[in-house]
């Protein structure tokens, strides 16, 4: 429609609101990143640029506590994401590659259940569950809870990817006398890899991110990074917290960018 005097798709002000939206999303993160490089022990006054609080994070009086918490977080995120990704890959194969069956819809519902139940309710229910079966709270309870709520996040990119892979590849393999297991491990799994990697990264970030459920099911004295940060923030925001936050922020952004690049490459190839 070259004759029309204006572009129908454009609405005045929408660009402005989009920019406002991005400013609101990024301003708090930028401000904390900038202030984490402030040498002053006060969070209000800017003194000068320094790495003082980053050094403090690794060697300061609270460093042992945060190192232990970071280690716990990392171990839990790796094991929970690996387990959840495995479970999700198998479940997606059953849901998408095993015909129609009675439990199919119910299985999809069960897998997405952790997404529908409010997080605080899951936290309460899991705490009560461990209490009822007299399972002592500690690292193990955190890990089990994380595996459960990571499954739907791992499942989403995996099933999306599997839906895009035509079944002809596996059928061709089976026509050439590959067993079902070989068709799965040699054909389907390699084709699935980008989805599996995205699922793993998503689950890993979700596990690393969790505060509410962890706070309920952790044992006394056992901390992950978010619960340790929350405990410290309750006493007031301190500069070393901003340094830790900036580090964690960087890790998240690097991982998401990685997953995005893997996803894009996958589409263009």
């Amino acid at each position: 429609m070259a004759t029309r005097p204006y572009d129908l798709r454009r609405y005045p002000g929408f660009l402005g609101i989009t920019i406002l939206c991005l400013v609101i999303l990024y301003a708090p993160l930028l401000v904390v990143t900038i202030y984490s490089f402030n040498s002053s022990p006060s969070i209000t006054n800017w003194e000068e640029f320094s790495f003082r609080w980053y050094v403090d994070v690794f060697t300061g009086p609270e460093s042992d506590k945060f190192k232990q918490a970071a280690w716990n977080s990392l171990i839990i995120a790796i094991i929970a994401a690996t387990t959840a990704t495995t479970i999700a890959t198998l479940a997606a194969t059953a849901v998408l590659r095993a015909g129609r069956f009675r439990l199919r819809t119910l299985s999809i519902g069960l897998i997405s259940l952790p997404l529908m139940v409010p997080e605080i309710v899951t936290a309460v229910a899991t705490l009560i569950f461990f209490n009822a079966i007299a399972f002592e709270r500690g690292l193990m309870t955190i890990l089990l809870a994380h595996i459960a709520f990571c499954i739907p996040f791992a499942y989403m990119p995996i099933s999306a990817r599997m839906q895009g892979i035509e079944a002809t590849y596996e059928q061709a393999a089976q026509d050439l006398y590959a067993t079902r297991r070989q068709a799965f491990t040699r054909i389907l799994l390699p084709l699935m890899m980008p989805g599996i990697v995205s699922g793993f990264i998503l689950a890993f970030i979700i596990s690393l991110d969790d505060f509410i459920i962890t706070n309920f099911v952790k044992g006394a004295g056992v901390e992950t990074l978010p619960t340790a940060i929350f405990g410290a923030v309750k006493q007031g925001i301190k500069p070393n917290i901003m340094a830790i936050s900036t580090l964690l922020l960087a890790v998240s952004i690097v991982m998401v960018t990685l997953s995005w690049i893997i996803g894009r490459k996958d589409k263009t190839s």
Partner: protein
Amino acid sequence: MAGGGATGGSVQTDTYAGARGWLLLPAWVTLGILTLAPLAIMLVYSFLTKEFRGGVIWEFSLDAYDQFFFDRGLFGDAPPQIEWTYIGIFWRSIWQAGLATLLSLLIGFPTAYFIATRPEKQRALWVFLVTIPYWVNLLIRTVSMKFLLRDQGPLNEGLMALGVISEPLTIVNTNLAVQLGLFYSYLPFMVLPIYAAVERYNFALSEAAADLYAPRWTILRRILIPAVKPGILAGCILVFVPSLGSFLAPDLLGGARNFMIGSLIEEQFKGNAGNWPFGAAASMILLTMVLILLIVSARQSQKEAR
């Protein structure tokens, strides 16, 4: 589509039909034990007697629900009246979550629309820009928000330096701060479904309306918005539901006066109040509300799809 072409759209075959039990077993065992069973036990706990300072006594009791809905005076023998404290907290949470959803819609809709009308190659990058902050730790985002908004924070300092205001604005510990925090927590959930809906929208409809002399904003109101309504509805649900039970934003940004459901429940298990059956009952009420909302909206979108 090859293979199961009859399944309509998605590829579906029965290559692994023989192994389906084994493939699904891990998911059923894990989620059955760690998600379904806990919810069932929580329902049971909400009908038990409380043990002081946490835990329960295995004795049937309706006390938790009674305490939630009725006030029987200090000694429990006065004629029961409706107890407004907890209903009030739920009501305030609904109100706060609703306003946060509205705020997300007002900013999220134009953003989603703008992104969906970019050239196709740019869209992924815009979506990526909007979703990155979501993947940053929620606790860190909420703390950052508090750092920015607090009385001596960069926002107030900046506005004062520019001469816009002469005294710092008090934002932290107000309702507005909670709404901003919730908006910040869940905005991508609003943008993504609306973006997907606008991307599928057929702009020939707008062209037709314009040919019939409909003004631009009338086209938006009468043609575009009704067409992308399922996306808007999905976005609102996805922001409203987690906002309703959120804990971090009201706790860190709202202070003691802006108590929401999440804090009420947390206090029963972590704080000094320590009433587990009551916490379980409040969780059950929240869960019921959310499930009803999800079922109603699923029905609604099914009706629209027909």
